[in-house]
């Protein structure tokens, strides 16, 4: 077999070298692109972390402001400032109802219905089966 001419060998070498350079360059560009992506992702994470921390800070700030606005002294000052005259009840003002207020109100209403329908007041000895609504 006849050996290839020297120029052809050099051309092959140049072509392979160029191919290698293109391949290496592609790898380099790929690495740069990957690093850029890592950078953007890391940066986005950092911004998100910073926003979460910022939101948390503002939430704490708001809670502190709410607590300050709701402290007993502030509320009393508002009560005085707005002339609401709100005071805690005294025992003499309190009427305690030992029975269930729900049943009492239902009985009263049923008695009223009976009076309207017959035009006469309900006799005292009439008993009712009280039906009440329940949310449970």
């Amino acid at each position, binding site marked *: 077999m006849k050996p290839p001419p*020297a120029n052809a060998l*050099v051309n092959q070498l140049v072509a392979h070298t160029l191919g290698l350079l293109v391949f290496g360059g592609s790898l380099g560009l790929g690495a740069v692109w990957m690093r850029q992506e890592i*950078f953007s992702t*890391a940066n986005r*994470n*950092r911004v998100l972390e910073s926003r979460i921390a910022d939101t948390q800070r503002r939430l704490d700030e708001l809670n502190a402001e709410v607590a300050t606005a709701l*402290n*007993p002294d502030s509320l009393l000052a508002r009560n005085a400032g707005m002339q609401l005259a709100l005071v805690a009840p005294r*025992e003499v003002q309190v009427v305690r109802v030992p029975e269930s207020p729900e049943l009492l109100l239902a009985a009263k209403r049923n008695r009223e219905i009976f009076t309207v329908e017959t035009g006469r007041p309900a006799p005292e000895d009439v008993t009712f089966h009280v039906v009440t609504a329940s949310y449970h």
Partner: protein
Amino acid sequence: MSKGFASSHRMTLLALGVLSCFLGIGVRLVFLQVIDRDELMRSVEKARRQILVEHARRGAILDTKGNLLATSRSFVIVGADPEMLQPDDEHNWPELARLLGLPPAQVALTLRRGIAAAKLAQATAATPAARSIPAGEPRERRVRWVKLADEVDENTYDEVTRLGVRGIYGQRGFKRVYPDGELAAHVLGYVNKEGVSVTGAEHHLDLYLKGEDGWIESEKDGARRELAQFRSREVPVQNGDDVVLTIDSVIQHMIEEELKTIAAKFDPHFATIIVSDPQTGRILGMANYPTYNPNDFSKAPLDAQRNYAVTDIIEPGSTFKIVAAGAALDQGLVTPATTFDCGNPLITHNGRQLRLPKEDEPFGILSVADIVAHSSNRGAAQLAMLLGEQRFYEYARKYGFGSTTKFEFGGEVRGILEPPEKWDGLTITRMPMGHSVAATPLQIHMAMSAVANGGTLLRPQIIREIRDPAGNVIRAFAPEKREQVLRPSTAALLRQLLTRVVTEGTAKGTDIPGFELAGKTGTTQKLVDGKYVNNRHVASFVGFFPASRPQVVLSVIVDDAKIPGGSIAYGRTVSAPAFKHLAEQLIQYLDITPVPIADRSLVALNGGDR
């Protein structure tokens, strides 16, 4: 194969060119990576590496209903990097000054001085002398930070940022704030400017509250922004846990208002009010006069910062009579109807004739019930003599006198209760009326609480639970029994006797019909220079209600109240009215219902039980 475009000569030249380029790059790399590596690495490390510390947020302190008592607010320290400041931003400086609440001239002066200092440092660093300083040796420091304003709030800092002045930065930190001001100051304590927790809950629960700082090892760019992709190590911040106290801020406010009234009326040396739940030992309110605002702790004198309820001792006076009465009843030595001669000043005890203490008013024959109701000193002394020194002492110890209550925030003293071996001949006649013994207000309060809850001495509980930052309960605190002081039936009997104090005894008129107030007055002469004086007293009223099913124990102790006209500051005149006023408010707030008449009769019949 074709011969291609190149001749062998050209190709050789091209190959040589390419090879020499690679060789050049290789040589440079050897210099960069091998020969100059150490110096370059030092320079890079110094210029780009940074450690960012992320401060942990201190946990909040909440009351039993979840209201914030102490919290941390973030603030920003605003400053400038003079090397980064630009001359074309100068027109924004006046607006910057306005936002920071500073005079424009001051801001301009600070920034110009900073710029001048930075330029000087840069010029010095550029001189041959500075360049010749070997790496690692100290050099002239660059000026990269000039502080403009402290404690700028987040909203203001946002506006500062929006101005877009290059070189203006903020450093974040946390500041401890107490939204309710003086409320529960002695219980909460405070954190000082250096971030050190000094007293109260802040100090004793610091382990839970403080959290752990986090940090990030990373690199920064020329504009000092973090290059997040170069983070090499990251330790996440661990915020502090929240602490929930047993204090109820509404009750706390009530008692602090009452203390203000007492202070305005009687100008005492100090005064203490404690409210607790007798069944659990949970402290619902604890306040002292004088007090202070923890937001302004530096202005408060040290005396105002003391939690007198646990740090100071007083002679309990007649409130101590529950020891002799309870012990004698518990031992079955007497019944409420047993009588004693309280008119005779002399008595023979262990073969010796002893002089009994004076009474506030002359008494004759009194039953045990009357001794308690009318607070007879001689009656109490005779009850103690009936018990004997040792048994009386043991009961006093069981009530918690002479030992700390194990109050969780510490700082408490254990009081004085000497064993019988150290007593003189008269101690058995004086100690039952609350002399020759000293206790903290909290000890007296807890002793009465034992009577209220059926005879069990509990540890006062001030911490309800600890929650992690996510709100999960990581530790809950349950009631802790210390001692069984009295049998439940004895405690119930004593409770009934104590109701007579407010209906017909020393605090007559303090009763609130239907709510069975019960308690004991105390009026103790103060010891001044080792002698009891007639014009200075500790007035107290310690009690609970409703007697048949106690829901609240309340103590009002006023030290050295000044009564207009110079009359004696009795417990019934100084403390009992405050007790009643507070009881009226607590009944409404805690929705305590009156005791039905039938229940009261039943309790009276069988002596009551738990």
